[in-house]
């Protein structure tokens, strides 16, 4: 057997071994279980709807919100600026390619608490640290932000700031979701434009 033949057999064997290898590393959890558990039990992985409302109102570009619901649910109503990645699609795709987007915070939400927390566990299991969950999901968003009202006689400065944030987030949500679908994307872009103009920035 000459060198060329040996090399060919070796390559063939290597190919077989590679074919028998488990799926790529990104498809399996890479952190150790105990570390993942500690990570997931950290209360900082939860964000309240008020915190998300604040990011929305301030149009914080370091934050990306992910809507894990179905496209139909997303189209019916969604948090402005959010990206729709149904949970089932997130499982099919490589989450690293979606979530390594240079944002400081990737926030998951669904209608409730299950899908968003599964997604968080998967992301953190793959060692993607900039991931968080909006606690209570869209149900809590409606309950706290969309149904917010003030009925008392006195309001503290802190309560007033919170109420104002909720009101502005509610207005943005209503304005955005009342638009025809074709205009929704343009709406959010124009909001960014308006903010820059107010700040005196250049376009």
């Amino acid at each position: 057997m000459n060198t060329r033949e040996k090399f060919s057999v070796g390559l063939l064997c290597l190919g077989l071994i590679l074919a028998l290898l488990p799926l790529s590393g990104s498809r399996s959890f890479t952190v150790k279980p105990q570390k993942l558990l500690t990570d997931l039990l950290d209360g900082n992985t939860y964000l309240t709807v008020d915190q998300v409302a604040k990011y929305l109102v301030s149009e914080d570009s370091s934050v990306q919100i992910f809507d894990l619901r179905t496209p139909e649910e997303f189209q019916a109503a969604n948090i402005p600026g959010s990206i729709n990645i149904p949970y089932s699609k997130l499982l099919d795709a490589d989450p690293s390619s979606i979530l390594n987007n240079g944002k400081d915070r990737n926030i998951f939400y669904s209608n409730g608490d299950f899908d968003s927390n599964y997604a968080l566990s998967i992301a953190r299991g793959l060692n993607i640290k900039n991931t968080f969950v909006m606690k209570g999901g869209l149900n809590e968003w409606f309950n706290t932000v969309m149904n917010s009202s003030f009925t008392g006689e006195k309001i503290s400065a802190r309560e007033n700031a919170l109420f104002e944030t909720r009101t502005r987030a509610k207005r943005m949500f209503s304005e955005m979701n009342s638009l025809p679908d074709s205009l929704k994307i343009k709406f959010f872009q124009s909001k960014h434009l308006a903010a820059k103009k107010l700040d005196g920035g250049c376009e």
Partner: protein
Amino acid sequence: MEFIKKYKVVIAIVLIVLVLVVIRSMGANHFRNDAKKWAEPSGKQSNIISIEQAAKLSGRNLIINLDKDASPLMNITGELENIPADSILSKNHIKLIMKYEGPVLLFSSDPGLSARIWMILSQMGCKRLYILTRQTDNEFLKYKFRPDTLMH
């Protein structure tokens, strides 16, 4: 012997690669390969069950209360273990869960916590693992948004 002598270089390369593959596969990480496969029941929501559904499962249930305060659980028959979430991976607990032959039901007043623990245990290869909940419609939107047609 003739064969081994003839192909010793090739065999040596293959053996080295095989050893590397085995080391990588059996590494310190205790999670199973193919995260998608182990997460699949969560996509179908077949891992979430109510008390009524749990009663119909075959085998004796192992109910794990993840909350620190041993809150009284629903009327459900089975073996009850109070295991706070932060100690779920301790040697004894993980051994109990992995070797249990019947259905393992995770319960917490915080559905998000149950979901997180379910994902960890599932990825470690725990089968017949369920989330026991009072609200199986947690992922159902209870509110309907009505577009404001007068806004623009």
